[in-house]
């Protein structure tokens, strides 16, 4: 595969010299120097008195706009070249500009999780002396998708390109695209039944894969021999390379126009400026102090057909989260008490955790288009070594689903920051999101090609309520804020299935005075498939324990679930032109129960199972949290929900304490205001009659713990955290007044 070199660019190409970075330093020296400067001054690159941007603000704005425009144009270029619906439909990509030492200056919209991760890859290359051992020259192409270097999972492939100006390395351009096929063990790019690294598929360990803007022929052959979807992968690379070249061209134009010194100094000042802005935002919008929450991670591995048998164990790990907002505006996240790592693909890594913090902090604090490394510099993560967030050695482990704990942790983190926004009066900034899981497949598609079959219409998640309005219905996937569902017809071209329904699911909602957005379940009927398996795909590891996402008296959304209908009578229904299955209906008596066939109710990690044409896969995500007491929900808002099918009379009465009826003459819903007021008053009295003092509940629960009368998985979970942390042990036993020797019966 050849990418035409940019006309005129040759003028800027010259043989690499040693050293290739500014002021005669090697890249390694430059990196070490920058770190020293930061440690010594607390300012990025030692910039204690920014002046380049301040001296001429108009020029500075123009400069930043040109960088951002180049990145957005590069991202759109990729979408024009790529064939993958992940890129074209859902836009699972992003592109960034980095300093020579790997610090992000500017980032396109998209999956901004990679702002720091891609820079970590560059720094890894520098630390491993690529400058001398591998060589970094104009027109070089590097790939990395190895989470042991940096990143979120092997499906996210980084295309990295150095930018030279008159022989000096002045920047890097990096594009990330999520791949549908990375050669992993079935069912695809995010398998569950993989616990060892080899099952992750292809890993590129920051490898030089091309020179002179041209992919090496042997690498191209390797891809063709290693992937079922080699064409898609290579087209994505072509799109990424085209984007990188386009941005590189623009950088050269900017340097030509603004001057090299300005480019370098202003780029670094953008990072320092953003660091200061981020601290200013924290000090403007939050309140210092300590904030806490807890994340349970459920791993159901006992039935997985894994290659490493000790991995076959169901277990839960606890992740207590403490956020401290310090006097100086620094924000520290401490995970003391996190349980141990395990043999599964869901362990996080420090890089992955920084990725989660990056997109969460950017989308909720630093969303003004100037996000870069500076957005993260005031933040810190304390990740206990040996925990599920930071295994001692990631290299032997599969890493396909690092996303799962990351999303669970940072969705709750948004709620923690939201509590702080509330105190400061910025209730409109309150927000939560939630991870989702679903079903993926592998097998022969409608064209007879064997391949992974992962659809990722991530736009179907509802967003959490804010403190001033309901959450968005769908559109709540914070990982990539511009996400949408994509066109059904396009997904159907890529998958051997037909989409039977895309309807909002009212019972997915997190109830509250303001409710969360409703989510849209995936409902796919296999069509023209052959030898196909289905299994889970996990983007969040909380399942039977609802994530603690309610705000100010709101409830978290209900449990998500997967259902597979096999050996159904759908073919006959189609033949008779009878109604098919299109929506869930009431979750206690779901519509799918009227379909004749085998009904498999599954958790979020079902092992692979055989599926055939006319089988139906249902994956329903739960929404994040509602806000405020549901008995205070505005009745007009409720009436609109009823009109729009986002609530039913049972929800109105049971959850919102409101009595509503459909007026058949007008076919409109009416809420009886007077009777509702009476009912709500009665509900509050009922609550008080039913509730007990916390002291009574505490004694009862303590007795259960003393007697070991809670689920064995939970006892093992607590033991795991106790092994990891004396502080956790002490606080846990103190809270429940447990004897020092307490183990809950676990040896």
């Amino acid at each position, binding site marked *: 595969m050849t990418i035409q070199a940019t006309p005129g660019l040759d003028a800027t190409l010259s043989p690499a010299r040693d050293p290739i970075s500014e002021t005669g330093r090697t890249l390694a020296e430059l990196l070490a120097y920058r770190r020293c400067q930061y440690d010594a001054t607390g300012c990025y690159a030692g910039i204690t008195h920014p002046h380049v941007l301040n001296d001429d603000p108009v020029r500075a704005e123009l400069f930043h706009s040109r960088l951002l425009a180049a990145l957005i144009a590069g991202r759109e270029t990729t979408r024009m070249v790529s064939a993958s619906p992940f890129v074209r439909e859902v836009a699972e990509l992003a592109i960034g500009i980095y300093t020579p030492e790997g610090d992000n200056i500017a980032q396109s919209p998209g999956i901004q999780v990679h702002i720091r991760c891609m820079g970590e890859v560059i720094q890894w290359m520098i630390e491993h002396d690529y400058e001398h051992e591998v060589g970094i020259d104009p027109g070089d192409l590097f790939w990395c998708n190895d989470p042991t270097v940096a990143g979120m999972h092997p499906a996210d492939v980084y295309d990295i390109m150095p930018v030279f100006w008159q022989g000096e390395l002045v920047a890097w351009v990096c594009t990330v695209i999520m791949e549908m096929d990375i050669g992993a063990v079935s069912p695809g790019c995010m398998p569950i039944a993989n616990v060892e690294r080899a099952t992750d598929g292809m890993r590129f360990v920051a490898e030089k894969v091309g020179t002179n803007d041209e992919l090496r022929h042997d690498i191209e052959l390797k891809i063709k021999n290693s992937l079922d979807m080699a064409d898609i992968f290579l087209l994505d690379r072509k799109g990424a390379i085209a984007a990188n070249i386009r941005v590189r061209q623009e950088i050269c134009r900017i340097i030509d126009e603004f001057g090299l010194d300005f480019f370098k100094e202003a780029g670094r000042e953008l990072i320092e400026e953003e660091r200061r802005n981020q601290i200013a935002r924290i*000090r403007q919008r939050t*309140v*210092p*102090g*300590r*904030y*806490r929450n*807890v994340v*349970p991670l459920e791993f159901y591995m006992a039935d997985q057909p894994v290659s490493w048998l000790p991995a076959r164990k169901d277990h*839960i790990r606890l992740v207590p989260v403490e956020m401290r*907002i310090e006097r100086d505006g620094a924000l520290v996240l401490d995970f003391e008490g996190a349980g141990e790592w395990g043999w599964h693909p869901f362990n996080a890594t420090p890089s992955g955790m920084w990725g989660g913090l990056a997109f969460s902090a950017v989308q909720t604090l630093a969303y003004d288009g100037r996000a870069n490394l500076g957005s993260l510099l005031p933040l810190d993560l304390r990740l206990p070594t040996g925990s599920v967030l930071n295994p001692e050695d990631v290299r032997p482990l599969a890493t396909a689903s690092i996303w799962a704990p990351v999303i669970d942790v940072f969705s709750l983190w948004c709620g923690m920051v939201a*509590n702080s926004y*509330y*105190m*400061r*009066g910025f*209730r*409109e*900034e309150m927000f939560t999101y939630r991870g989702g899981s679903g079903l993926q497949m592998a097998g022969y598609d409608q064209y007879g090609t064997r391949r992974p079959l992962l659809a990722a219409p991530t736009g179907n998640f509802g967003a959490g309520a804010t*403190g*001033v309005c309901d959450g968005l219905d769908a559109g709540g996937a914070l990982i990539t804020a511009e996400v949408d569902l994509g066109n059904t017809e396009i997904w159907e071209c890529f998958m051997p299935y037909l989409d039977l329904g895309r309807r909002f699911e009212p019972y997915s909602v997190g109830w509250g005075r*303001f409710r969360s957005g409703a989510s849209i379940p995936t409902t796919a009927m296999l069509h023209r498939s052959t030898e196909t398996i289905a299994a889970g795909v996990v983007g969040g590891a909380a399942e039977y*324990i*609802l994530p*603690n996402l*309610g705000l*100010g*008296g709101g*409830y*978290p959304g*209900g*449990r998500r*679930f997967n259902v597979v209908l096999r050996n159904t009578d759908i073919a006959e229904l189609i033949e008779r032109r009878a109604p098919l299955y299109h929506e869930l209906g009431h*979750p206690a008596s779901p519509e799918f129960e009227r379909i004749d066939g085998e009904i498999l*109710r599954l958790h979020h990690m079902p092992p692979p199972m055989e599926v055939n044409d006319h089988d139906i896969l249902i994956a329903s995500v739960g929404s994040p949290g509602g*806000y405020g*007491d*549901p008995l205070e929900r505005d009745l007009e808002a409720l009436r609109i929900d009823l009109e729009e099918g986002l609530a039913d009379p049972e929800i109105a009465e*049971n959850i919102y304490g409101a009595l509503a009826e459909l007026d058949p003459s007008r076919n409109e819903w009416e809420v009886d205001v007077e009777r509702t007021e009476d009912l709500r008053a009665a509900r*509050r009295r009922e*609550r*008080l009659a*039913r*509730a007990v*003092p*916390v*002291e009574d*509940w*505490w004694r009862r*629960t303590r007795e*259960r713990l003393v007697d070991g009368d*809670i*689920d064995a*998985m*939970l006892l093992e979970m607590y033991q795991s955290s106790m092994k990891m942390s004396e502080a956790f042990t002490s*606080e846990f036993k*103190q*809270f*429940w*007044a447990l004897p020092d020797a307490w183990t809950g019966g676990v040896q």
Partner: protein
Amino acid sequence: MAVSKDDLRDLFAGTLAWDKTKEIISGPKDDDRFEAVLELLQEQVRWPERILLPLREHLYIVESGGSRIVKCDCGHEFGDWRRNWKMSAAIIARDDIASMEEIYPGLRRPDPNLCEIREFICPGCGVLLDVESVPVGYPVVFDALPDIDVFYDDWLGRPLEDHQDCEDRTAEIISKWAKPLL
């Protein structure tokens, strides 16, 4: 952008017109928001104590006779702000199928063997103050312990008259409860 008191009131009530709401969401944040909100909330409550910090829906940290306590807008008092207010609330713990199904029917229900839904209710007015969903046996979550003095001293630049150390004192409640057990 500055937001008027009337708009703030309507914004929080969810009754502000969407175009204005959107403008506030998308616009630059106003530096004096805290003061404006404090003034609004002080007018809305029916008791005289000075609000130091709104803690969450219905709850405030107030100055009361030289102490700082958590108080509901109904007037119910939960005690020192450094002790988790939830320990002084009333609780409905949904820990079985029947009670969970009231909120999460059928497929949406969590597993009561693993999960507990704790509803913390104001003993004074019956309002639902917080819903906690955690593993069975997990200690009550102390969501927020604001450092009030650092906030007023360093961030707002107008120190409060007396300083109080910001330290978690929930253990004092536990000690009292645990006394008969020892």
